[in-house]
């Protein structure tokens, strides 16, 4: 699915050995696993991958996937086949803030293309690229369920809706100022409903 292609990422034994969840992340992972019958913990894979992506720099390296496989007692390829199917998992390093602009019908009807062009100009990158300082990546996304508040973009857990150029400016400034990695699992989500 999608445009994500598994790059020729090399497996690094030393990096793999250093890949360990923090105590807090491990607690979250154990809670997720407890939601399923003990012999069915593979079911925890999708949510655990979200935790792993947030924990290990915003993408899923081969070492990270191998580590997740060991926790869920499944083969690494079972992790990779899932990570490569779903669009939310990054198989290569991304910027700290991944801006995902919805481009499907209602968003398009309301100016999504102009928002994309504007961000491209402001960040001096094209869709699919990351800024040189590693701060922003720009992606386009398919319908994010924000059609009544179009145009919109998602960054980590936050939905930014009814976008205008001014809102985009503010957003970029705010994100650049605090400079931290934005993940889907963030608790300080912002929603505008």
């Amino acid at each position, binding site marked *: *699915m*999608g*445009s994500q292609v598994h790059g020729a990422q090399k497996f690094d034994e030393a990096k793999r050995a250093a890949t360990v969840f923090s105590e807090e992340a491990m607690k979250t992972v154990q809670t997720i696993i407890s*939601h399923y*019958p003990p012999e*069915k913990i*593979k*079911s*925890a*894979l*999708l*949510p655990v991958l*979200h935790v792993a992506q947030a924990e290990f720099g915003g993408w899923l390296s081969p070492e990270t996937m191998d580590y997740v496989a060991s926790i*869920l007692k*499944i083969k690494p390829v*079972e992790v990779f*086949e*899932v990570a490569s*199917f*779903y*669009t*939310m*998992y990054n198989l290569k390093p991304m910027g700290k803030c991944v801006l995902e602009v919805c*481009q*499907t*019908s*209602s968003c*398009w*009807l*309301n*100016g999504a*293309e*102009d*928002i994309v062009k*504007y961000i491209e100009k402001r960040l001096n990158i094209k869709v699919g690229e990351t800024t040189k300082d590693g701060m922003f990546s720009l992606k386009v*996304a*398919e*319908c*994010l*369920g*924000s*059609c*009544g*508040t*179009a*145009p919109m973009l*998602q960054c980590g*857990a936050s*939905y930014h809706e009814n*976008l*205008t*150029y*001014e*809102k985009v400016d503010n957003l970029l400034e705010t994100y650049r100022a605090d400079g931290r990695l934005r993940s*889907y*699992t963030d*608790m300080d*989500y912002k*929603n505008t*409903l």
Partner: protein
Amino acid sequence: MGRKLLIHNDHVPNIHTLEVYRAHGGYASVEKALKTMQPDQITDEVKTSGLRGRGGAGFPTGMKWSFLAKPEGVPRYLVCNADESEPGTFKDRYLMEKIPHALIEGMITSSYALGAKTSYIYIRGEYFYVARIVEAAIAEAYAAGWLGKNILGTDFSHDCYVQVGGGAYICGEETALLESLEGKRGNPRIKPPFPAVAGLWGCPTVVNNVETIAAVVPIVNMGGEEYAKIGVGKSTGTKLISASGHINKPGVYEIELGITVEDFIYSDEYCGGIRNGKKLKAVVAGGSSVPILPTELILKTAKGEPRLMTYESLADGGFQTGTMLGSGGFIAMDEDTSIVKNLFTFARFYHHESCGQCSPCREGTGWMEKILQKFLNGTANESDVELLWDIQSKIEGKTICPLGEAAAWPVAAAIRHFKHEFLEIAKNKKFVDISHYDRLNLVRA
């Protein structure tokens, strides 16, 4: 004002909390069901209510429940489909975000009816923050004894969990959703067996949409017969409609099934008419998969009768002149909209979202996107319209799951009703983006 049963309290401050939800009558259906009703009685009430699946297919919910196999010693599951991804649809998000306990209450009451000791709410990954809201509400429900062991002192115990997805439209298809819930790629399963017999981990499972499960609450509270009095014919009760596009008041509206489409578009109670004084050109009435209709056919059927917001009236005339209620994703387009370009966004969507299992869908969706791209860059020939028609006709009915149809129908309908737009572009070898957005003034707040 139409009657509201699902989101009537959406503007009550803090209605997302258990305390406020309870103060407004919340969890009454659980009390009524667990203390005064047998499980089968609830299924009977749901059957009597005429409730139909609100995710898009419109299959009678009570009948779906009655198919659930009940072998001894095998667990049964209720799975809530909160993978809302159909372009134009955002009602489930609204319901879960505003009134999460309405879904949880429906999960408990429905699980009691089905004899499910465990249920899962599968929420699309992009709605991560919505999952947080639902999880917080579940924690409140556990703390107050609405979930867990021996609910209300009865011998009914129930656990409810949230699982987030990873970003894939196909997981809205119920068997793909189950695969995803099992930690796999979202490839739809070949049916039969249906989930009612072999669903989650091979166990009997009912998969219902968020809105469907939430609707069980008023049905149990008021009785199926009362519920069935709302609506017209086989379209009973209320429906959440996600309204978007070029309308004055986009948003989620709860309607009584049976109001006219014209009323929905133009009355101030709902969409409030078309923006900037423009004329309506076309409507996609039930999410991106359903056939687009031009103004004259969406407001009136081919027989000249007013079109109603019901399953039957919207489908009147078949695909020649009608459409479907679908998920209730209502996208209105004004006179300046390019039907070809809008269709391109749909085609790109389905190409991106095809799981890749079946060749007609995997290849066909890509071909359709590429041909539509030719129209946009001015290299299409008139014969490309026929080619596009030919390809869509070879996808429909030839795939494991309905994504094939979902991709083919919008293409067929756009050609059926707006062929002249395709031909004009092909003839002039130039696509003029009449629907350019600068007129919407994105600079203005």
